[in-house]
């Protein structure tokens, strides 16, 4: 149990990268990037977890109650926003590329080589 969450994070990263390498559709590739990114959420939150502790919100808690690490949660919040906005930008590029190039298959994008 003590390393299992970390291994899950690593697995998700590799799955996402595999999806990117083998992708035949750019929309799907952007989705795979989102998958790879979710590994960072899992790792960070697993690192900040503390057994037997509650969420770091003290509205109904005595101020000496044990809580999980709030810093990693703040980091993941930032990370989620960053991921969503980058996804949006990449999808905008895919839309325009489809109009100009006539395909969303990355294997057929050979306009830049050599």
């Amino acid at each position, binding site marked *: 149990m003590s390393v299992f969450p970390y291994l899950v994070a690593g697995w998700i990263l590799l799955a996402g990268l595999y999806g990117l390498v083998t992708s035949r559709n750019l929309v799907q590739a952007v989705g795979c990037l989102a998958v790879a990114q979710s590994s960072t959420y899992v790792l960070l939150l697993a690192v900040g977890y503390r057994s037997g502790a509650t969420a770091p919100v003290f509205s109904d808690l005595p101020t000496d109650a044990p809580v999980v690490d709030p810093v990693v949660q703040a980091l993941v919040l930032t990370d989620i926003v960053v991921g*969503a906005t980058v996804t949006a930008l990449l999808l905008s590029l895919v839309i325009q590329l*489809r109009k100009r190039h006539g395909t969303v298959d990355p294997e057929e994008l050979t306009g830049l080589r050599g």
Partner: protein
Amino acid sequence: MTNALTVIALLLTAVTATTAALTREPVRQAVVLAFLGLCLALLFTVLQAPDVALSQLGVGSAITPLLILLTVRRVRRQEQADEHPDRTE
């Protein structure tokens, strides 16, 4: 109890993420990604991160899949236009 829940949520997340990466068809992938968002939100709740779970619900299971679906819709429309240049959709 919490331990068992954590393991279940982790397994669910890992399996869904793998499925999402292996799903080749973008619309189906968007659905799997929305489900992945749910799994992650569940995991975050178990890990005592309600703030993050809320964000993940909003972004991971709503906005990101919606963006993908809109992109696919645009791409499909283009494909129809390419196939029948004489006719509108």
